[in-house]
């Protein structure tokens, strides 16, 4: 009996050594340790043995059974390992099951980057209505009715007294009406002008900035905008400030940056000038302070404004502004 079992064990292990498929291993497993397998059959003979022999024989058979079972398990494991090394079961070039992720609109992305820079400088975000009173959009900004500077902006009217804001500057006034200096805000938002071509859409986005305090100077304005430009573009992007005119600032400046495309050599984007106009800025006009009851002998301030589309077009190399509002998926998915 003992010898028989030993023989069976050897037979099984020898056969297993030759089995090279999962089916063969399973066949052996059934043959030896299956419910009707050889080893299990032997187990059934144990009760017929003399009482004294039963425990020893029982544990022998059980030992062999456990040994074979673990040998079969190992063999299967080894087989899987072998197969995984030799044959590629998966076509790894088939597309995976992607978890879709949407994209933020490029204008939002640029607006966020602009705001982030100013937030780091300690500015706060302020917002205001898109449909605005003539008073906030023009008059309080030193643009009385019949002022020629109103020609600079083609206005959508809702009534004689209500307009779609032509810039985000009215937010300045609304903030100053409610708050006393010091003030450091940026005001991102939509603006509207009667204009539509390759570089103008009737709706567009602006970011306005305002700093008011004691001893705020034009040199500070240059400092803040230089920081902004260097972070938004890069440290090598130089700026120049050119005298200009806005009714709500004096002195006023147009701010140009070295063309980010040609680096100043002259190209189509900068009309061969080497410079790109990206910002309007200036020192808050005392007339504006008067409208909000700020003492202009005590406080000074600067304001600036920029078009987000303009900056996005430069950053991303887009030459038709209208692309932003078509929302073609093939465009949106690039950002």
């Amino acid at each position: 009996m003992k010898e028989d079992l030993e023989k069976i064990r050897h037979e099984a292990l020898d056969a297993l050594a030759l089995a090279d498929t999962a089916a063969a291993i399973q066949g052996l497993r059934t043959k030896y340790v299956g419910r009707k397998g050889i080893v299990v059959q032997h187990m059934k003979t144990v009760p017929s043995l003399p009482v004294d022999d039963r425990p020893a024989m029982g544990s022998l058979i059980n030992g062999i059974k456990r040994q074979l079972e673990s040998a079969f398990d190992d063999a299967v494991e080894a087989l899987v390992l072998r197969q995984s090394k030799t044959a590629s079961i998966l076509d790894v070039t088939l597309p995976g099951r992607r978890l879709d992720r949407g994209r933020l609109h490029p204008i939002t992305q640029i607006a966020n980057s602009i705001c982030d820079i100013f937030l780091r400088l300690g500015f706060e975000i302020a917002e205001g209505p898109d449909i605005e009173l003539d008073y906030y959009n023009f008059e309080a900004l030193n643009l009385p009715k019949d002022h020629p500077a109103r020609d600079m902006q083609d206005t959508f009217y809702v009534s004689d007294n209500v307009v779609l804001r032509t810039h985000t500057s009215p937010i300045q006034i609304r903030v100053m009406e409610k708050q006393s200096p010091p003030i450091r805000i940026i005001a991102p938002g939509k603006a509207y002008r009667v204009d539509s071509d390759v570089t103008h859409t009737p709706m567009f986005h602006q970011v306005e900035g305002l700093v008011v305090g004691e001893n705020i100077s034009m040199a500070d304005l240059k400092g803040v905008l230089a920081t902004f430009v260097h972070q938004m573009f890069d440290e090598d992007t130089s700026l120049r400030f050119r005298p200009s005119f806005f009714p709500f600032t004096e002195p006023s400046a147009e701010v140009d940056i070295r063309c980010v495309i040609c680096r100043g050599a002259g190209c189509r984007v900068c009309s061969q000038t080497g410079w790109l106009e990206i910002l309007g800025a200036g020192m808050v006009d005392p007339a504006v302070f008067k409208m909000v009851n700020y003492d202009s002998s005590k406080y000074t301030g600067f304001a600036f404004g920029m078009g987000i589309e303009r900056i996005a077009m430069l950053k991303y190399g887009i030459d038709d502004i209208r692309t932003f509002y078509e929302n073609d998926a093939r465009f949106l998915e690039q950002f």
Partner: protein
Amino acid sequence: MKVSIKWLKEYVAFDVDAESLAARLTMMGLEVEALVDRYAYLDRAVVGKIIHMEPHPKNNSLHLCKVDIGQKELSIVCGATNVEQGDVVAVGLPGMKLSTNVVIEPRQVYGLLSEGMLCSQAELGLGPDQTGVLILVKESVPGQKLSDAFGLSDIVMEFKLTPNRADCFSVIGIAREIAALLNLPLILPKAGLVEGDTSIETLISVSVESPQDCLQYFARVVTGVKIGPSPQWLQNRLVSVGIRSVNNVVDVTNFVLMEMGQPLHAFDYDRLAGHQIVVRTARAGETFKTLDGVVRTLDSGMVLICDAKQPVALGGIMGGENSEILDGTTNILLESAYFNPATIRRAAKKLGLSTDSSHRFERGVDPEGLGRALDRAAQLIVEVAGGQVAQGPAHGGGLQFDKRAVEPIELSIGRTNRLLGTKLSAGQVIGHLRSIGLKVEVLDDDSLSVVPPSFRVDLLRPIDLVEEVARLMGYDQIPVTSPVVPMIASPPTDRLRLREQVKEILLGCGFSETLTYSFIGADSFEKLSLSPDDRLRSCVTILNPLTEDQRVMRTSLVPGLLSTAYLNQTHRNYDMRIFEVGKVFFAKKGAELADEIEMISGLWVGARHVRSWHSKGDGVDFYDVKGVIETLLGALDVKDVTFRAGNQEELPYFCAGSMANVYSENVFLGTFGQLAPFVTSSFNLKRPAFCFDLSLDKLIDRVVWAKKARPFSRFPSVGRDIALILNDAVEVQQVVDFILGTGADFLVSADVFDVYRGKPIAEGKKSVALRLTYLALDRSLRDDEINVIHEVVTKQVLDAFKAALPLAQQ
């Protein structure tokens, strides 16, 4: 405004090339937009020598000429009679555009090829002579460019002037800035008016009835003029700045306008009834025919220049046909006036008529320059058209309108430096101000008393002078510093935080952000099939939209999303997952401004997942959109979210039976579901579209901002299932609510894992399977205790919903 370099050099003798001058002027605040070579159009005109000439065999009024143009000989057929063999002439090569706008091309003339054209002075735009070919001196070199041969070169600078610089709307104005820039003297034209004996009083009387609109009115009379073409120099000046030559008298008024910036007007004196000038405001509805032949309807805000009987000019804007200078005019009245800028601007805007005159009056002309310009024009008219100037100008009006001469501006050096962030000395500030003709007196260590010249109508306040100092020193000389301000920070508002989070979550759900115009077409409401009194129709209308599809401010983001989906569909993109976070606008009764509400809307069209080998591209359905809403509100921790079947009457653009409203407690947040098929088809979409429309404004108060950790169990939970046969009408949420409401011990959740309709379940019934989870915070639960609890719960549910257990469990 255009100014030619040659003209400028009459008043300031500079020797700087046009490009660097333009760059420096730009940095001074006079932006030069373009530099144009006036004679660039002569690029294809060369000197040619006629080396052979013979009659045209088929037409004896023409000649065939062999013309030497240096490198080449051309055959040119010519009809002119003033040329002969050996003449040196002006040749236009193919591609050249003549002043008649004809472009020269090689062509066959009676069977012979003509490879160019012999041009007249007029055709070349170089003078009035059109009688024959322009003949050059014999020494001219064939092949040389015509512009070189004549020494023609003149660059025209095109300025983009800011509205405050009224003084620069003239050649002298620009010359003055150049003189200051280059530290050169300004050479003004010499006054040399010779008056005759006749006194102006005997010729004309001027009365100004509305002095607040016309503050000053000067007139001169020139008698015995001969109207004719202007001399070449005068035509040339006007052409260089883009003004058409009319006749000698009109040309002089335009010349002085350009030279000095003062608009003038010339009337035919003999056509002025009663030899009288009356300046008055128009009567509402009064009509007047302006020089351009248009009959204009006026209002009481406009100024009319009248004679004894009728209006003769629309003051400050345009003259009238009834008094214009004609070929036979012999006596003229010249007007030089100062009109109220606001009056002119209103009138010009209302009439939609902007002229060189109105443009300057709107911005303010030199109040002290009226007489000077008038005298200059009278003198030039005598020069080019003969005649005699009557003695003295007639004068009307006379309001004092320039207070600055009596009230100098006080400027503080310290404040100037503080504002600019500079350290300028008094001497530097004074130097800059004086360089542009300001009178400066030192009051004390810090203060200056400054009187600007009359033409600088923009300099009224100390700040205006600070800007001049900054501009003249150069903005690049201002240092770069960082503002020193108190370190105060306030947290971002809930709105900003929420907006950012919402976008972030929706991106994670696979939705891309779109931005669409805030205005939509008024027909959008029809397309959404809104009832006539629908809330969404109370929109704000734009009075002057660019196009009809931008007529009203949106009251919903949905039309924009649908239009976007349509645009993409035209590019064969049928699967879209897009959202927009933006404002909608509602007209508010009794208020001027609109209600602006921020919305979160999304659209899912086409496939749930893009079709691939592992996905058949099944269409999106209601539960996909609901899943998005659940994900969004879940991630935001919105309080007590409930879903209720929606009322399609309220929002007719959703599909009945496939829409739901979402609430937080009882606050309505929005709606989602399938859009009605007629809505998708009115936007031309081919696939079913699912949409959500939530109010960000409402959501702000419903979000739990301050998060608190809740204890969670470290012991295993026990799950037990219930399967029920329910009436189809019973909403599963009712069952879930009931189960959780039983208050059974250890019960923490009830989740639906199967819903089945069909055999063997009876018609009108459904089988619903739920998994109940039991959990204790402090220990492992025993099967037997849960069995007891679960049995009770099961029985309660069966009783409450009159439900049955499935057959298998009965």
